[in-house]
């Protein structure tokens, strides 16, 4: 392991402490990430746009400010990436689509402005499924690949936001989660991802359109880093009418070494459905034992309506989103990826009475989940029921209704219910398969109880070694390079 590799995989919290004490230069840190991106991202395709010059300039400025005694906080000088669905002043924002290839916003999304005020440094815009919809078949800016095995999917839709911290291309990312788009990539890439409570983080300046489900959240290598990033981006924003005015708590102060006094429950239908992979099941059972050893009371709860969350999201969130692309679908059909255009066209054709009834059904499903959370502090299940699939197998082929049910609906059972309920949900590493693929635990809490899911996640992380494991890209990418399958 080289010094640069050690530096790249340090937690953001530790990097921040070293920057504050001037043991680490932000310029060296940014350069270290740029070097790694230059060496490996031709295969992994985490980034659509790398902001090398502006990041180095910001790093030099941070170094000067800190030397002058103007330390802004724990993220000062910390490089981060952001899903290319979130607007950045002067930096193109493609949404992963060639339709938006030339769009350069003249403003920053609120989350980007807040991170800039905290002293964090934007290093690049991260790859995603087109328009933040899962199911892209051909990526205009390169096929994103899993750093643990580049033949495998990094999941969707915040693919690059999961790859980049896992591969040591930044200290942390921001992703966007409507149904599972932060948690899926965090799980597939072996890192920590949070879908915050709806209303905790401003959506202003992110191009999403599923107004009742979209959330922006951090993807990081540790739970502490995740809490640091959330602390910086959370809070009321007058530019987003649905952000909450509740005070943002000190998430880090909730950390405890044990979990005594907490009651957590596995969700039967989300944890043990038909088709859960044997190694996922084993890792999840081991994770439950760890939580018990930490002092949590672990039970089980049945949420039989949770399975309806996936079609209900597609009938409502997709319809709201697709309505904003109607004119483009009329005029530029062939410029959309086939997975995006067929999914959006489907949503455009949902009859209004069905949409309205589906919104009622969402409220019913949501109430069942919230009722469970009045009895339990947190709900648990694996984040993904299978290890990351081969890229070809993960594509959403639709040749029969069974394909739609299996590939588009059932595989999302573990993430979408918490999207419908709009509760905070944390994905974090819970082990690896025998083949070295990451497995992930999901912890969902009560609305605005991010500190509880962080507390459980942090104690679990301290008790397990999984977050200390990082992909050796010289090894994992060697096969792809030899076969020459990396895209130009």
């Amino acid at each position, binding site marked *: 392991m080289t010094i640069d590799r050690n530096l790249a995989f340090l937690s953001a919290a530790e990097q921040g402490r070293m920057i504050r004490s001037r043991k680490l230069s932000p310029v060296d840190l940014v350069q270290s990430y740029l070097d790694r991106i230059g060496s490996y991202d031709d295969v992994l395709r985490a980034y659509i746009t790398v902001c090398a010059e502006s990041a180095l300039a910001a790093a030099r400025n941070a170094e000067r400010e800190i030397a002058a005694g103007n330390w802004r906080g724990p993220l000062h000088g910390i490089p981060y990436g952001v899903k290319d669905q979130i607007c950045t002043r002067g930096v193109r924002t493609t949404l992963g689509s060639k339709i938006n290839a030339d769009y350069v916003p003249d403003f920053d999304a609120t989350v980007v402005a807040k991170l800039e005020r905290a002293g964090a440094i934007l290093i690049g815009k991260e790859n995603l499924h087109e328009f933040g919809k899962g199911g892209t078949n051909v990526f205009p800016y390169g096929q994103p690949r899993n750093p643990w095995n580049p033949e495998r999917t990094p999941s969707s839709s915040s693919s690059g936001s999961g790859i980049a911290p896992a591969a040591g291309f930044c200290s942390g990312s921001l992703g966007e989660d409507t149904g599972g788009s932060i948690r899926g990539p965090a799980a597939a890439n072996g890192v920590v991802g949070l879908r915050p409570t709806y209303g905790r983080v401003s959506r202003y300046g992110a191009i999403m359109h599923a107004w009742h489900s979209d959330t922006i959240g951090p993807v990081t290598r540790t739970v502490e880093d995740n809490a640091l990033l959330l602390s910086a981006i959370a809070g009321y924003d007058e530019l987003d009418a649905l952000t909450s005015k509740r005070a943002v708590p000190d998430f880090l102060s909730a950390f405890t070494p044990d979990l005594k006094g907490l009651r957590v429950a596995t969700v039967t239908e989300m944890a043990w459905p038909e088709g859960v992979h044997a190694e996922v099941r084993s890792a999840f059972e081991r994770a439950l034992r760890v939580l018990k050893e930490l002092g949590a009371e672990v039970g089980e709860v049945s949420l039989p309506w949770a399975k309806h969350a996936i079609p209900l999201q597609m009938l409502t969130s997709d319809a709201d989103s697709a309505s904003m692309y*109607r004119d483009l679908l009329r005029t530029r059909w062939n410029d959309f990826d086939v997975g995006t255009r067929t999914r959006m066209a489907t949503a455009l054709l949902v009859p209004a009475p069905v949409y309205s009834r589906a919104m009622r059904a969402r409220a019913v499903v949501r109430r069942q989940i919230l009722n469970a959370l009045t009895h339990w502090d947190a709900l648990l299940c694996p984040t993904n029921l299978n290890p990351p699939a081969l890229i070809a197998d993960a594509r959403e082929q639709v040749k029969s209704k069974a394909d739609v049910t299996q590939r588009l609906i059932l595989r999302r059972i573990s993430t979408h219910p918490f999207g419908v309920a709009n509760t905070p949900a944390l994905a974090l590493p819970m082990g690896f398969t025998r083949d070295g693929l990451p497995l992930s635990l999901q912890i969902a809490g009560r609305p605005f109880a991010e500190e509880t899911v962080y507390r459980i996640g942090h104690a679990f992380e301290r008790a397990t070694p999984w977050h200390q494991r990082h992909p050796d890209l010289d090894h994992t990418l060697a096969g792809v390079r030899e076969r020459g399958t990396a895209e130009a």
Partner: protein
Amino acid sequence: MELTTEQLRAMAGAIGLDIPEADRENVRLRLSTLLSEMEIIERELGREMERTEPVPPVYPHEEF
């Protein structure tokens, strides 16, 4: 629910969308499946849905 191609074409036409032949069956299968799922949801949750307003999923109350 099993939509026909003709029904799908008419629905798309009503909003000015001309889905090319190559993608029509894909969209038909997706929409037919989702409408079938909604029929199942209506059978299972219909009575609850009658008593529930589609309140936006924000949290105006202290308890949630």
